[in-house]
């Protein structure tokens, strides 16, 4: 295990871009929480509050040609990888114009912006690990993984999901194939209501990295600079062909599991151990003169406008119409026609 020194070499420009995604994600998540309370969403809302520093640090290092398999708390990373906020509201409102056309919702959108490919998450935790490995294997077979600056695949997973069999199988396969996979583990201390001691028995989740043939790193998930530095090293190593990478960040989920959950099982003791990455980052950047009060206000203002515009457009768009659906799960025409 390598813990990256907090002393950051991350350029201020990147730190500011990172902060911008964190703020936009927080604003969008807050809006989704409000819409949930107003009963305006087609389903529940799952928020990444408290996890933005890690998630955005993952997404920000991705580029066209890469693969991202986000999980439920990756609004920040999705945005940093190029997701349009419009798709967020379209999907959460179940609009016909959205990526899943109301057939699936919220965090299940798989958005492609150009050749920035986000895999469409299925609920079954762990399942996206092999899918990301397969996408990378596909890239290798297409000859896209040659050289020392290759595309990477990043999969996001939680402390709970790491216990799933699919995660184990996928990690093992990634190690065997030595693929440029970056596994971003958000240990938010909770798997729904279950604490770490009932999810795993190893000393630290990063101990598994070596077992799978990964390089493992840890960081404080509430420290934006640590997240940026650590994810940056992991992604760079993967691109250079150094094989699969695992980053385990320690942080706390600052919301219910979904907005339907009051998270009353979070003890004051657990709560007291973790700060909120967003105000912490703002304070650090302000103290270091990277941004001032007016600059911050501008970022929040812009984020609110982006979110509001996206919400307004999505909510003005049509809902799916059962009468216009073909109700056929096949894509092949000869199978659809009822023979």
């Amino acid at each position: 295990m390598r813990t990256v020194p907090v002393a950051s070499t991350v350029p201020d420009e990147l730190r500011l871009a990172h902060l911008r995604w964190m703020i936009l994600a927080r604003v969008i998540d807050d809006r989704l929480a409000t819409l949930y309370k107003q009963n305006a969403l087609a389903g529940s809302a799952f928020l990444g509050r408290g996890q933005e520093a890690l998630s955005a640090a993952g997404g920000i290092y991705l580029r066209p040609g890469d693969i991202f398999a986000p999980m439920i708390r990756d609004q920040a990373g999705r945005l940093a990888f190029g997701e349009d906020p419009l798709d967020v509201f379209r999907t959460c409102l179940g609009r016909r114009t959205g990526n899943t056309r109301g057939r699936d919702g919220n965090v299940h959108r798989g958005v492609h912006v150009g050749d920035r490919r986000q895999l469409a998450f299925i609920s079954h935790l762990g399942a996206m690990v092999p899918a990301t490995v397969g996408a990378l294997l596909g890239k290798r077979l297409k000859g896209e993984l040659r050289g020392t600056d290759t595309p990477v695949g990043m999969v996001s997973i939680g402390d709970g999901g790491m216990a799933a069999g699919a995660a184990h199988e996928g990690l093992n396969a990634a190690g065997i194939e030595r693929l440029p996979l970056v596994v971003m583990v958000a240990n938010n201390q909770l798997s729904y209501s279950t604490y770490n001691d009932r999810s795993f028995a190893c000393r630290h989740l990063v101990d598994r990295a070596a077992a799978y043939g990964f390089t493992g790193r840890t960081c404080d998930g509430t420290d934006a600079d640590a997240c940026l530095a650590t994810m940056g090293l992991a992604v760079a190593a993967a691109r250079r062909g150094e094989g699969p990478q695992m980053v385990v960040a320690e942080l706390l989920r600052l919301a219910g599991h979904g907005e339907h959950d009051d998270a009353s099982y979070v003890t004051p003791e657990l709560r007291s151990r973790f700060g909120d990455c967003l105000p912490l980052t703002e304070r650090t950047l302000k103290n270091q003169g990277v941004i001032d009060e007016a600059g911050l206000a501008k970022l929040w203002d812009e984020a609110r406008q982006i979110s509001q515009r996206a919400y307004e457009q999505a909510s003005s768009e049509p809902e799916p119409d059962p009468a216009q659906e073909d109700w056929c799960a096949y894509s092949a025409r000869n199978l659809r026609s009822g023979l």
Partner: protein
Amino acid sequence: MRLQRQEPAERLVKYLEAIRLALGELLEHDPRVFLYGQDIAGTFGGAFKATKGLAERFPTRVLNAPISEDAITGIAIGAAQEGLVPIIEFQFADFASIAFNQLVNHAATMHWRTGQTCPMVARLPVGGTPGGGPFHSQMVEGWLTHHPGLVVVAPSTVADAYFLLKDAATCTDPVVFCEHKYLYYHLAADFDPRRAEHLPMGRAAIRRSGTDCTVVSWSGMVHEALKAAEVLAGEHEIECEVIDLRCLRPLDADTILESVARTGRLVVATESWPFGGVTAEILAVVASEAFQHLDAPPQRLAALDTPIPFHPALFAAHHPDAARIAALVLETVSF
């Protein structure tokens, strides 16, 4: 089990060889195709040798996988999204239960949920053989056909083993390809892919025409149905129409309904379990859509309702055969 040839001569193509031939041609002609599965690479060529020799010809595209049916399937799904056409091999269909989630929740839902296609083929060695026991003998179509989005095929002939595999690899939907283990080496036919004709995937074949009773089956059981039909014709002057479904999902209900309209009688024979499943589906379709044509209650014959036994004597008692099909047809015809 009735075979087309008891002692395959040199020029005959075995069912397994037809699969290997199709795999080799797919690898040769379609650069998107790759094979991934346990023990399929190297000189070994798989537990049943379906891929023997292919790794030597295509070393980077025939890959050994660890014992990870979930990941093997998930990897295929991810690769399919990158535009490849993965053909994965399960050592035995029974182990597809480990991949159930990836098949039914991930591959099968992909197109409907996201509009993206998920072209992939999962090859599953199915079916019972004496001594196979509870975990190396299962049929899996009962649970896999239940889920919308999967194509499930089960070839019973050498030609279909070849052509349906080719069709499966060009289909834009995920295909579960059920190959019968007993037929691998025991079924051989004079087969030349350049001369042979075949029906498209999704269509049932009438293997024997008849006017007295429709017998529907698929996979290995087709050969028992044909044997029963021969006995019934010779000894009882009963002419069965034997339908080989070939494809279980989508189901070619039209061919079944048209046949039942001619014969007025139906027996469905499978080596799967009796509860629910494809037999129940066919009986439901016929009962609701061809009720006016029926001269007798539609019947089904399945395996016994226990796990599949190990000892050959128990297995024989558990497994339907031609004699039992013939008995049920007689009962139906004399109703």
